[in-house]
Structure formats: C-alpha cells, structure tokens
C-alpha cells in the first residue's frame, strides 16, 4: 500500500489514516471520535474503543497543554494504522517545547502543572501494550502507542 509512512513493514498495514489539526481544545474530542471510528473497523468491543479514545484524549491534551502551552497555533499529527494481525499502531506528534527530563515525566503522578494529576502517561501505558516516546527540547515530542486486539489477556481495569 502506498503510504507516506516510511520505514514501516508496509506489507502488513491493512488501513491507515494520517491527520493533522491545530492545537485547539475542541480538537481533543474530535481526535478521539475519529480514532474511535477508525478503530471500530476491527470489530473490537465497545470497551476497547473507549480505552483507545481515552489514550488519544491524553496524548492530544498533552500536546495542547504541555507542548504548546495552550497556544492554539501548534500543529498536531496523528497517524493510526491497522495491521493484518489486528494490531493498532498510533503515533501522536507535536512540534512543541519537548520534554527535558523524560524519566521524570514518565513517573506516575508527576506533572509539571500543579493543577494536573500526572495520570496521562500512566493511562497511555495501562491501556496500550507498548509505549515509546521520543522527544527533543524545542523540537517536539512523538508518542508511539501499540496495541494488539487479538490474544489479549490483560486486565485493563484490574
């Protein structure tokens, strides 16, 4: 499949979508609806879709609140792809301020914002099988999230 996703195992991708939108708070809801609609192609459960929506909500909120510090002129990109093994790969990317100390950022309950709970990355990790973050100060952050909907024996709400 002809895609703009370089370096992937192109053959196994059965569908993908690439979105780009500005860092407006109303786009958090929009983004999770769209990714939810995309994932529903997998015929997974409603619970699965709700979990993916939560993950998207966390990742996109982080771009707006942290990467762009609530400015609305930032660009956010999402790439979602489904593979023939019924797995979802999700990338949420910003071109904002980046994360200086990634280890600290990933600690449960750590937040640089006193009004927030530091639960975002915890949720992303809990509801996905894999999470991989690459970030460069002043250049931006890219969060890669993977989840397989087959043979999944994980207690998400333990």
């Amino acid at each position, binding site marked *: 499949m002809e895609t703009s996703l370089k370096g992937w195992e192109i053959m196994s991708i059965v569908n993908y979508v690439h979105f780009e939108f500005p860092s407006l*708070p109303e786009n*958090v809801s929009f983004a999770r609806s769209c990714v939810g609609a995309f994932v529903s192609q997998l015929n997974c459960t409603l619970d699965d879709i709700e979990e993916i929506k939560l993950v998207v909500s966390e990742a996109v*909120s982080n771009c707006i609140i942290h990467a762009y510090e609530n400015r609305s002129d930032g660009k956010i990109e999402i790439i979602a792809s489904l593979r023939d093994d019924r797995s979802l790969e999700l990338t949420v990317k910003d071109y904002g301020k980046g994360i200086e100390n990634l280890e600290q950022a990933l600690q449960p309950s750590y937040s640089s914002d006193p009004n927030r709970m530091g639960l*975002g990355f915890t949720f992303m990790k809990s509801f996905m099988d894999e999470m991989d973050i690459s970030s460069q100060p002043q250049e931006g952050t890219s969060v890669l999230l993977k989840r397989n909907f087959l043979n999944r024996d994980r207690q998400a709400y333990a």
Partner: protein
Amino acid sequence: MDVEYKTVRNTLVVRVKGELDMLIADKMRQEIDRRLEENSIKNLIFNLEKVTFIDSSGLGVIIGRYKKVSAVSGRMFIVGAKNPVEKILHFSGINRLVPMYSSEQDIINL
C-alpha cells in the same frame, strides 16, 4: 458540555453533561472553587449521571476538589457514574477516597 451548579444549604451540587475533558476542565475547576469560597460551602456532590466520557483532565478536577473539600473537613460524593466513566474512576482509585452512589436521592437518604 453543560454544567449545572446548585447550592443546597452548605452543599454544592455539580451536575455535568457530556464529555469531561480539558475543553471544560479548567473552567469547571475555577467555577467550583469560586462557589466553594464565596458561599463558604463545605460539601460537594458531583453528579456524573450524564457524563459519557472522562479523561485525566476531568479526573484532575474531581481529585483536586476532593483535596480542597477534605482540607476544610467537608465531605464529597460522586453520584450516578456509569461506564465508561465508572471504570475510569475505579481505575484511578478515586473510589477508595470518595464514596460513590447511584443517585442524589441515595445521599439524601443517608
């Protein structure tokens, strides 16, 4: 997203409708804090019956208000949370801090 605020004696009831995410979290937090201070209200009830989605921004408002209310020895309740909201509340562990009931009536009958 609609938020309805109602004061009954020294209790503030907050009824939320729709999706509780960052789009409304900040405004809701400010609005609740203003009402708590202005009217020297001690207790807080979050009615989440009509909430269809919550993420960490929404949870943050609830957990933060719990801390505030507890600091002045007030009580807080969550009411009417259904899936997927109920699951997220449990997942976050907030149900171990804040009693959860099915309806506002259940609290009045306590």
